[in-house]
């Protein structure tokens, strides 16, 4: 059976934010067309691995909506039929024209990089949008009929207080998004952002413990399901039974195969993970010549696959079948963690299952690390 999930990388941005570690390219308007050509060429080369029916497509970036409008439309037009088509957007790029373009391009889910509604935090993050840009973007999307909008929020931002976070959550909830992703800011050592905000980041790291609890408490109280470590969606009961979890991302967390196209994009296909190398020129040149772009590959043995399955599966609120991860599970650690109230053993449709308790989910990284077992050869 072919791959049912497709990721498309659009690297262009108006500006590279200080904290960003994604594969991005600033400006280069003149190359958008050539890049979309290359994307379509790569898609054509990989067509064979895709299933007849592609369930989800995700356009991520960069800032996909910064891509030249006609080129974006051309890309959307060429994508296969799918159930869920998500595009990441920055608020300041959302215009009535863009909203209509996305609609026309069969996009049915927009993930909006709001990050914050506090001007001083947006400015610390070097975001171009102001608080009103975020609201306007949501209204514009609603106006053209989008009924699945997700907002990204960041916490642990230099200068942030617990009161700032409370206001950010309230402002986000006021927009009634179907979905929210809330991330702690990951400041990578050696970036100019970390350099500029070093001491403040240390202070934020201490505050972050409280922030995470604050986020989960506030959103679950507002009727959102904490379905993944950093992701929340409206409870089905509040939206007529709709499952608003991000289906594309669920595919990652369920350990499914996916095809990624574009510079820097990662695919996992039948036990092989491969990453297109970053670098716009090389990517475009290769595909113009009809060749696959330069890639690095990593083959995943069964034990590694099980460990990944464990680390991904435990991010979710639904139980993970023990049978799927038996070889990656340290039984003694599991027993200790069960006793400590961080892990629970339960049942699902396929038998014994494991999941993290509420407190366990707040400690998910440490708990997972402890649970990992390395098969002895």
């Amino acid at each position, binding site marked *: 059976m072919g791959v049912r999930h497709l*990721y498309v990388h659009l690297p262009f941005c108006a500006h590279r934010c200080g904290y960003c570690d994604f594969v991005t390219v600033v400006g280069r308007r003149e190359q958008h067309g050539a890049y979309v050509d290359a994307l379509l060429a790569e898609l054509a080369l990989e067509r064979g691995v895709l299933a007849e029916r592609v369930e989800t497509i995700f356009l991520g970036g960069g800032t996909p909506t910064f891509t030249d409008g006609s080129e974006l439309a051309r890309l959307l037009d060429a994508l296969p039929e799918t159930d869920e088509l998500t595009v990441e957007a920055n608020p300041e790029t959302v215009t009535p024209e863009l909203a209509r373009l996305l609609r026309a391009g069969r996009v049915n889910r927009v993930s909006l990089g709001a990050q914050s509604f506090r001007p001083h935090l947006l400015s610390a993050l070097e975001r171009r949008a102001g608080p009103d840009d975020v609201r306007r973007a949501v209204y514009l999307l609603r106006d053209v009929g989008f009924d699945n909008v997700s907002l990204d929020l960041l916490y642990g931002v230099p200068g942030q207080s617990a009161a700032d976070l409370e206001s950010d959550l309230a402002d986000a909830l006021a927009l009634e998004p179907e979905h929210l*992703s809330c*991330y*702690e800011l*990951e400041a990578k050592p050696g970036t100019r952002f970390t350099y500029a905000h070093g001491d403040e980041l240390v202070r934020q790291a201490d505050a*972050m*413990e*409280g922030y*995470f*609890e604050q986020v989960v408490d506030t959103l679950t109280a507002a009727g959102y399901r904490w379905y993944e*470590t*950093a992701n929340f969606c409206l409870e089905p009961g509040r939206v007529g039974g709709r499952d608003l979890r991000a289906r594309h*991302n669920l595919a*990652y*967390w369920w350990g499914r195969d*996916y095809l*990624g196209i574009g510079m*820097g*994009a*990662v*695919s*996992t296909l039948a036990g092989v*993970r491969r*990453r297109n190398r970053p670098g716009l020129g090389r990517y475009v040149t290769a595909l113009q010549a009809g060749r696959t772009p330069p890639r690095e590959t*990593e083959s995943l043995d069964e034990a*590694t696959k099980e*460990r*990944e399955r464990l*680390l*991904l599966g435990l*991010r979710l609120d639904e139980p993970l079948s023990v049978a799927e991860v038996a070889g990656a599970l340290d039984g003694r650690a599991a027993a*200790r*963690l069960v006793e*400590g109230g*961080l892990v629970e053993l339960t049942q699902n449709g396929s038998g014994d299952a494991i999941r993290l308790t509420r407190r366990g*989910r*707040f*400690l*998910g*990284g*440490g*708990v*997972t*690390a*402890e649970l*990992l077992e*390395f098969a002895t050869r």
Partner: protein
Amino acid sequence: MEQARIRNFAIIAHIDHGKSTLADRILELTHAVPEREMREQVLDSMELERERGITIKAQAVRVRWRGHQLNLIDTPGHVDFTYEVSRSLQACEGALLLVDAAQGIEAQTLANAYLALDDELEIVPVANKIDLPQADPEAAAAELAELLGEMPERVLRISAKTGEGVEAVLDAIVERIPPPGGDPDAPGRALVFDTSYDQYRGVVAFVRVVDGSFETREPLRTMATGTSFEAEELGVLSPARRPVASLGAGEVGYVITGLKDVSRLRVGDTLTSRRRPAAGPLPGYQDVKPMVFAGIFPTDSDDYPALRDALEKLKLNDASLSYDPETSQALGFGFRCGFLGLLHMEIVRERLEREFDLDLLITAPTVAYRATTRAGEVVEVHNPAEMPRELELVEEPYIKASVIVPKDYVGAVMELANERRGSFDHLEYLSEERVLLSYELPLGEIVLDFYDQLKSRTRGYASFDYDLAGFRPGDVTRVDILVGGEQVDALSLIIHRDAAYERGRQLVERLREEIPRQLFDVAVQAAIGSRVIARETIKAKRKDVLAKCYGGDITRKRKLLEKQKKGKKRMKQVGGVEVPQEAFLAVLNLDSERRR
């Protein structure tokens, strides 16, 4: 050489008062070392000695001066090596008492001067460093003269650095120090005043022939330990090793023994000929026993064999070092090592780390305790974790300590000595300004941070020396440290009951700071027996997540968690808690840190 033309002498001096520099000048003036080979402090051959400015192994150098044979016997320069110093002095008829004219006499110099006076050595007082602007040669001379009951004019004033006055020192050695006595026709007797190990030739003994003479290939025997061997080679150091056919009465030289085990030839023992043995040994031999003990563990357990080999090698040159295998639940496999004192321990540690490139964890030093159990059994305890809990009596080693300070600091020293359970013995004015204080103290109070406290409370002016003074009953108790309800054997300590609470509290607080927060609350406790005397809780973490994980992140995040798990496996597990090595280090370094 006829005995009348031989002079055997040592130099008694405090660290940094210029002993090695003076030795260098003497070698230069007597042309013992060609100028091109001259480097600073020729006699301190080990790198470590050169860096610390102290001499660990005594050596003997023969030079010629105006028709005389002078044997300079170098003495070790620290309180831990009193016995070795006393043996070196026993090989001499005289000693230069060398004092920095800017500093005056220090306690250790005084202690060694008294040793020399007890042996009836002729002492030649020398005030050094007169070239320094802050030098006060007259005050130093007055102090030396007072000490020795001499005329101040007899005190030589020199600068070993510039060479000024050094010829006069050599002349004074010839004129003032008597030639060696001893009967050249009696059965041979030689004092072993030092040993070293040569990897090709085995144990080398440095000897002073007292009676008779010795020849190459002569069958020999040590009179205290009864070890027999043949003198493979006799020789002298000038300062290079130079073989000779025989060593006569009064002479100083070396004997290559071919022995492979340095412990079979002890400092202070007497060599005699097996063909014509002497009736009895020379006086003064003691079997020196280590008094300070610590566990030494490799930070990486794979280094255990390397540590064992390294200790074996050090032991070849250092008969006073002892080691026995020790297993700690917290620190793994290592050795319980015995040392003469704290400096000895520091030297061994540095050599292990530097010469053998080992990363080590060293437990807090403890002294040898003598414990009598309720059943009446007496055991010597070298490891706090082995101290029986049901005890009738514990005896601890005491020392007689001498401290010399400017008179303004007498109060500070008394206060410190009182805090450390010292009992005052006497006080003596060495001069108008400087006072000698004598105290009896438990050695256990010294091994922690006494010396550093003394230095800091007297702004570095105090000097300190001690002699062992036997075992006395002490109200000491064993304190255990528990993490997650489980005892951490490496952190147990034996301490006076009055200090147990304070110390337990410090250790527990420090561990709370050093052990990272875990997924669960962790109790850290100090206990005497089953009674908890201090407790801290390391609160569990509230958040430990990987913020995001999508298709492009999976490999990186998986590797992150794998690394975390593997790191946990390497950490020492105590009571289900991963205790990083840094935490042990921090606690074990608590004392040395308090010093700073």
